[in-house]
């Protein structure tokens, strides 16, 4: 090979590698969905996953949302003052939280908390031969490990997003009424009247998609981890990076789908 073609060969290798990975992840995601609807089912694993992904994520989701909503209210008020539009704080906080910040921040928090935890757990199971043990015990690892987690994430992350939206709006409400001088009743009325069904639906759909991405990335990288502690560490890191990037990309696509005119 001529030296001149080296960069092209390298580019080709990277492109092929990337496309192969996209293919593998897509097949894995499809298989995960297939295993969700085909028996046998593992309700105990599913309930565990619901608890870990949903209930135990509430504190971090709540704290993230309340501080974001509060900061958003301050930003909109101070920015709005430049053209005498400070009165729109309730409406913009509501639309900002429900359409964008609620789903994205919850999605990223889930990626940080849940994707990493799933990847580390599954990768450790692989390294310690627990996944091989599942197979020898006539249990399909994707049915037992992946399907319950993915289904739980699809169902519970929208609920977390909804809770995050409400807490975020309440963060804005607290700052608006205690610090910026808004009347409590008027703040809530303006918030409620401004939101449309499409805003809420888009928020919940984003939550389901982000939950799916977070769980699939955790399981995929865990199941395909390398050997030893380094393999587990790399799988965990890569899963969080991939989940975060895919969540942001999916957010753009879903926003385009719901709101681009």
């Amino acid at each position, binding site marked *: 090979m001529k030296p001149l073609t080296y960069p092209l060969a390298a580019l080709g290798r990277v492109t092929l590698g990337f496309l192969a990975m996209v293919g593998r992840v897509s097949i894995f995601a499809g298989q995960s969905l297939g295993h969700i609807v085909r028996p*046998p089912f593992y309700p105990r694993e599913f309930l*565990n996953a619901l608890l870990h992904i949903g209930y135990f994520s509430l504190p971090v989701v709540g704290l993230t949302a309340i501080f974001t909503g509060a900061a958003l209210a301050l930003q909109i008020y101070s920015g709005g003052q430049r053209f005498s539009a400070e009165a729109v704080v309730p409406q913009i906080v509501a639309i900002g939280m429900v359409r964008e910040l609620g789903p994205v921040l919850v999605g990223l928090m889930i990626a940080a908390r849940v994707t990493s935890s799933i990847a580390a757990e599954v990768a450790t*199971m692989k390294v310690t*031969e627990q996944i*091989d043990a599942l*197979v*020898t*015990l006539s*249990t399909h690892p994707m049915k037992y490990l992946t399907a319950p987690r993915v289904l739980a994430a699809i169902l519970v992350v929208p609920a977390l997003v909804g809770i995050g939206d409400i807490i975020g709006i309440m963060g804005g409400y607290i700052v608006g009424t205690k610090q910026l001088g808004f009347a409590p009743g008027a703040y809530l009325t303006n918030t409620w009247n401004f939101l449309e069904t499409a805003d809420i639906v888009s928020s919940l759909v984003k939550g389901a998609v982000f939950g799916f991405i977070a769980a699939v990335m955790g399981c995929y990288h865990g199941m395909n981890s390398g050997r030893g502690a380094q393999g587990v560490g790399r799988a965990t890191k890569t899963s969080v990076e991939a989940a975060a990037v895919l969540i942001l990309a999916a957010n753009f696509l879903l926003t385009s789908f719901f709101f681009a005119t």
Partner: protein
Amino acid sequence: MIELTNVHKGFGPKQVLAGVNLTIPRGESMVVIGGSGTGKSVLLKCILGLMTQDSGTITLDGEDTSQVERDAFLARFGMLFQGGALFDSLSVWQNVAFRLLRGSLARPKTEAREIAIEKLRRVGLTPDVADLFPAELSGGMQKRVGLARAIAAEPEIIFFDEPTTGLDPIMSGVINDLIREIVVEMGATAMTITHDMSSVRVIADKVAMLHAGKVQWTGPVGDMDSSGDPYLTQFISGSAEGPIEAVR
């Protein structure tokens, strides 16, 4: 009977199994020995279908293992993994009764727990261990729990992967004796992978030595010391001098 015919398996340029031919008769205890990296675990995983051989055939009672119905096939096996491979999130009894709590062999929870405690007792563990988690057990206890899990569903065939690795000599002796007793008691076909010669002498009816991806020697355990095979003799004596290179 398990029969391997001309089994090959490679990883990239490295050929780990290069034409393995081996027969494990029903009800016999075969121990496969060989140096580290000679493909003993790969051989075992190929039989179980955890890995697929590149070529060659593996049959169980005359049926090609790649063609059989997986659940029914695996239901005939029990396996003790090298590190125990116990599920961290489940208690000891739930680990032991894993197969009895789900799938085709599922039984009511109370019955499964009773069987698990009985199997724990069989491997020398008291019932108070049942509700502990694997992380709370010593290495020897984890091996015993792994052994109890392997025999919980009374399989016809049991595989033991390095059953004494990481254990002190006394605990190794206990595990070796347990394996021998259980295999005889259950009349099971057993295949053990080890490089611990004390295990070989206790567990084996027959021995096969893997070297360079092939079965270098096979025969009854009683013939091992007088085999005259230089590879086997060097392996048994643990000498650095001989046809097996010390640096691999």
